């Protein structure tokens, strides 16, 4: 399957370079045919497109005409936002999964189109399971792992399912994974991360021993075989690994938050290593208190898929001047850039997806930076542009309920 997987990955990467659909649509409605071989390349001047559109648009349906006009006019004035919104939405995975309340009280999973927000498929927990509790996605935007629990008295049981979505058929194949259940006698499940290639899943949990909290572990299970490798925190701690989501890069790096004393912050585990000590086998990239004591790093970090950049939500606690996303070099721990600074009370919550270079992110943040909105929403963040993703509610639902 290796060649096929490489082909899928290559096509996915290529699809993310797709051109802006607004320009295509404007040219189509203007009846502008592309150049032929031997003809000089036309100057792609959006202002000229707008001028050419002015007459034909008068005859076009009002809604679409207005939309195209808005796009073209905004481009001519170099206004941020609208002209690049479709491009930004098209630059992240085409589908996402979100857990929602089902009609019969179940907790279902829905697969949605990122651009339109349309629900493409609904996955209901198979009996006797009642609720999906957490979800994680592979890099192909159509392979997911769902944690599910039955409605039953007694210990809370969690088992794991593999969901494969076929966009052509709009169907989902759900299969129970050969991974031991986690129940409330054996441990607490904190977070999940599916490897980018969809062959392994990382489980972030705290072990229960004799009814008391034991050490924190990250377990990595092979999906086909269920074989496991375990990294465990040294000694026993009730703090341990905390706050999902985990983030898994193509090079095998896995980012997790850690609250252990003297070593708290965002650490990166080399999942290509054998199991063993979680701390010895991982490396802290960002401390939980940044220099100067003014900022506290949030509990989650998101790796760019090439594994080189770590994006972290940062909260100012001393100056009360604001909060923001910061990006750090995984290799050196050095701060590279600041993204989307907002007033203190406006929350930046979490980054849940990054492209290869870290230049395009899916985050929960206020849709504007003017401080008028204190609600954070999921959107695509790139440079100075933030575009809300249709169909996703405010981030209070929690990042473990959404996977890209």
């Amino acid at each position, binding site marked *: 399957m290796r060649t096929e997987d490489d082909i899928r*990955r290559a096509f996915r990467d290529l699809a993310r370079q797709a051109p802006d*659909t607004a320009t295509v649509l404007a040219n189509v409605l203007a009846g502008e045919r592309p*150049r032929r071989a031997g003809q000089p390349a036309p100057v792609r001047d959006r202002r000229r497109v707008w001028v050419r559109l002015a007459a034909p648009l008068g005859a076009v349906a009002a809604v*679409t005409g207005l939309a195209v006009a808005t796009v073209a006019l905004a481009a001519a004035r170099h206004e941020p936002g609208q002209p690049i919104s479709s491009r930004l939405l098209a630059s992240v995975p085409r589908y996402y999964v979100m857990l929602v309340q089902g009609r019969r009280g179940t907790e279902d999973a829905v697969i949605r189109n990122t651009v*339109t927000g349309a629900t493409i498929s609904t996955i209901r927990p198979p009996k006797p399971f009642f609720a999906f509790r957490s979800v994680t996605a592979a890099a192909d935007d159509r392979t997911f792992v769902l944690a599910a629990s039955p409605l039953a008295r007694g210990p809370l049981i969690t088992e794991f399912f593999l969901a494969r979505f076929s*966009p052509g058929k709009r169907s989902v194949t759900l299969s129970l994974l050969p991974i031991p259940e986690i129940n409330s006698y054996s441990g607490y499940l904190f977070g999940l991360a599916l490897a980018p290639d969809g062959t392994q899943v990382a489980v972030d949990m705290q072990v229960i021993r004799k009814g008391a909290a034991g050490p924190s572990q990250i377990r990595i299970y092979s999906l086909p075989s269920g074989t496991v490798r375990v990294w465990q925190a040294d000694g026993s701690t009730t703090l341990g690994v905390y706050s999902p989501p985990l983030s898994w890069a*193509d090079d095998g790096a896995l980012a997790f938050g850690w609250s252990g004393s003297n070593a708290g912050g965002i650490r990166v585990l080399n999942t290509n290593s054998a199991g063993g000590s979680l701390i010895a086998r991982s490396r802290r990239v960002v401390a939980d208190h940044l220099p100067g004591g003014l900022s506290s790093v949030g509990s989650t970090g998101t790796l760019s898929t090439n594994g080189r950049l770590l994006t972290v939500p940062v909260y100012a606690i001393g100056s009360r001047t604001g909060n923001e996303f910061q990006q750090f070099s995984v290799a050196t721990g050095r701060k590279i850039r600041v993204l989307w600074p907002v007033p203190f009370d406006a929350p930046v919550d979490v980054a849940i997806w990054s492209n290869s270079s870290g230049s395009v992110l899916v985050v929960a943040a206020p849709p504007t930076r003017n401080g008028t909105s204190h609600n954070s929403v999921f959107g695509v963040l790139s440079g100075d542009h933030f575009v809300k993703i249709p169909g996703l509610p405010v981030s209070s639902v929690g990042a473990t309920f959404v996977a890209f």
Partner: protein
Amino acid sequence: MTFEEFARAQLPAVVALATVLTGQPATAEDLTQEVLIRAHARWDRIGGLDRPDLYVRKMVVNEFLSWRRRSWRLVPAGDTNLSMGTVPDHAAGLADTAGMLAEIAKLPARQCAVLVLRYYEDLSDAEIADLMGCAPGTVRAAASRALAALRVTMAPEQPGEPALTQHVQGHI
């Protein structure tokens, strides 16, 4: 469904398909534009179909094959001279993405289209056959030849061993 409704819902997917087929965003823009202008002119008929999106995809694929026949396609991005013999396991896959795209671009157009429809659009062989106007067996043969060619060209090269060529390719 009006043309505008279709465009609003389907255009990103259509443009993405064209991008994957052609390997070039600029070429994809032109190809999509060409197809949609024709679709727009005939929307009274196309819009009444059960699946106008499939019909437009068919138009995109046919246009791509037609462009390839006219040798009008640009060479896709990607370094065809990537070293493929030394990087181990997972990292190799990452490094070879550009190389993979370059090798796919060298395939005959119909094999390339079959790979895109199978591994990007996730269509079944029967659906691909219907879309391309050929038998499912022809689709399977094309996919098999394309995969065989890619496995040969993307395989690590042994020192001192002559580079294998694409002798397993064939047109469908």
